[in-house]
């Protein structure tokens, strides 16, 4: 399954394949797992096609955004290429009332929460600090300070607990929270503190760590000497390790963890083993720290390819794939048009929403700038 690269760079120290949950091999073969397979049994062909479509469209968006950045339309873009299965699988396991706290690469998760993906462009175009209403989608804004939001997710979960929305047995009421972060983030104090708070409070929160093997240029071994999912165990949080390029397994382990959380069983730590196929962000140069051969190993484990083989095997007609290709092309064009049309914000935006109520300090700064800019207009006319 997961053989380390020749230089050993792919292998978190202490890694053994035995613990890895996998339901779909890179060759598109189903694998039976006693406790997790039943979690995906209800997914019929149409549902599987839906997961595939999710991954294809999210990837299309991602490639389009990367190229928009190259054309100077975005200041920056963090590609999610290669991580679609972890994100779609875990995101689709969530119910509408659950709440997600993404970091900044969670395009697929945001998609599953029903956020118009185009809103993610605003932040990276330097036009907005967020882009969507978190409450409308039960999906918080991206957090750029590594690890901070693991605590927010835990606190939110403690709120859910206090509201009594845990362990009632009513699926319309019980809720849980998912915190998304990377392998590097596990080194942050905030993430350790979040695990402590979640554990001692039995908070209904799932920590979903995408181990994509790199924190910018640093391999996972620079962050941890144990497999990441052991981190959770040290805090008394049940932990699992899943093939993050397997959408079915990602779905299954998250579904189980969410069920435990909603029913009052407390937090879970999930390590989804995946790979960032692209650069860290469009400012990064991965050739400085990793090899093509390494990337090639992971290209052969592509999450979308393996799902396609499964679908073809289970009888999805070729029209489905060509239809989806057209849909993705159309989607790409819409993204481009949308991005080009995002207007620059008015200058007053600088002063908006600093506080919930108007403050003298802000008003006087705003008045000063307004006057100052008006002076230029007068001079020009």
């Amino acid at each position, binding site marked *: 399954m997961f053989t380390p690269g020749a230089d050993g760079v792919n292998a978190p120290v202490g890694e053994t394949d035995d613990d890895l949950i996998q339901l779909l091999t890179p060759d598109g073969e189903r694998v039976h797992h006693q406790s997790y397979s039943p979690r995906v049994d209800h997914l019929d062909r149409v549902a599987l096609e839906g997961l595939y479509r999710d991954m294809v469209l999210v990837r299309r968006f991602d490639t389009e955004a990367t190229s928009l950045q190259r054309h100077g339309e975005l200041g920056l873009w963090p590609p999610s290429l290669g991580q679609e299965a972890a994100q779609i699988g875990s995101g689709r396991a969530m119910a509408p009332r659950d709440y997600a706290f993404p970091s900044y690469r969670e395009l697929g998760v945001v998609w599953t929460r029903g956020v118009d993906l185009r809103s993610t462009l605003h*932040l990276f175009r*330097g036009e907005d600090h967020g882009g969507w209403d978190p409450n409308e989608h039960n999906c918080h804004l991206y957090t750029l300070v590594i690890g901070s939001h693991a605590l927010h997710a835990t606190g939110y979960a403690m709120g859910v607990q206090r509201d009594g929305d845990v362990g009632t047995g009513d699926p319309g009421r019980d809720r849980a929270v998912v915190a998304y972060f990377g392998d590097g983030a596990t080194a942050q*104090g905030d993430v350790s503190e979040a695990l402590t708070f979640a554990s001692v409070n039995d908070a209904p929160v799932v920590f979903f760590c995408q181990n994509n093997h790199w924190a*910018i240029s640093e391999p996972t071994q620079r962050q941890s000497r144990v497999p990441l999912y052991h981190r959770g165990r040290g805090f008394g949080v049940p932990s699992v390790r899943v093939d993050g390029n397997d959408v079915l397994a990602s779905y299954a382990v998250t579904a189980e963890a969410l069920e435990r959380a909603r029913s009052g069983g407390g937090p879970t730590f999930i390590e989804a083993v995946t790979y960032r196929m692209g650069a860290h962000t469009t400012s990064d140069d991965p050739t400085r720290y990793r090899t093509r051969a390494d990337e090639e190993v992971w290209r052969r484990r592509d999450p979308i390819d393996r799902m396609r083989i499964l679908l073809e095997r289970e009888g999805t007609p070729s029209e489905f794939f060509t239809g989806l290709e057209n849909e993705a092309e159309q989607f790409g064009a819409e993204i481009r048009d949308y991005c080009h049309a995002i207007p620059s914000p008015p200058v007053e*935006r600088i002063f908006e929403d*600093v506080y919930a109520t108007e403050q003298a300090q802000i008003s006087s700064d705003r008045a000063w700038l307004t006057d100052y800019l008006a002076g230029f207009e007068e001079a020009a006319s």
Partner: protein
Amino acid sequence: MSEQTTSGTQRITLGKAINLGLRRAMERDPKVLLMGEDIGPLGGVFRVTDGLQKDFGSDRVVDTPLAESGIVGTAIGLALAGYRPVCEIQFDGFIFPAYDQITTQLAKMHYRSRGKAQVPVVIRVPYGGGIGAVEHHSESPEALFAHTAGLRVITPATPADAFTMIQQAIASPDPVLFFEPKARYWDKADVDVTAADQVLDTPGDVRAVVARAGTDVTVAAYGPSVTTALRAATAAESEGTSIEVIDLRSISPIDIPAVAESVRKTGRLVVVHEAPTFLGAGAEIAARISEECFYHLEAPVLRVGGFHTPYPVSKLEEEYLPNLDRVLHAVDSVLQH
């Protein structure tokens, strides 16, 4: 190992000047070590540490875990054990996980040990805006650290100063916050990379300099704003106004005598920095100059800086930053008095 540092004057960028300064300090003192995120094979996200791990090894150029509190906290311990750690914080907005270690521990160690414990830690922080970055990548938090006694806060504005000041910072027996004006990393100038060792005789003594002499108005600035002030001086000259530009270089302590001396000559002062003016370094300077130069002042001291808002989205940073026009506007205002 380091043929770059062996000969004379070179035309280099500010980023490269820091790189050469670090290299020099590491060659001179085996106790100097660098620590930070992505500073090894990648050479840092701004490439300031480029090539250093290759030459000095991964024991002296350490790619740390992604944990700022950990970086500064362990640097304190290393310093207590006799090392001279130079920490890199990747971006200004990511210094806050380490804020506790810096302000409650690093700043006070010497004081509470009654001088018995020295913590010569340097913390390098790329800071300031103007590069079109996303949130948390353009901040100017220097006043927060300058407000904490026990820390020195310095910032170079030119490649030559970058080269010498980083070495002074490392040689300093006190902890130093070394703020690097990231928008100026790519600015080039001549640097004498062989003749700067005498600055180490006074490592704790970074004084302001007159970056350009003038007679009508003093403009005091530091870091990224010095270039803006110099451009303003050039522009003003064509209109017949002579601006004296003071490059403060150190924010804590602030070289008030140098500013006062200039103000006694010009009678007018404008202070420029990117950080919000509210309770910023400019507020301190304005207050001190009002006290010390009251009878020399022809006009109130004006400040040009950021508003009392978070750093805005990059599409609006041009309106937010103290640019050439805003400096000239302030200069005109003090001249109209």
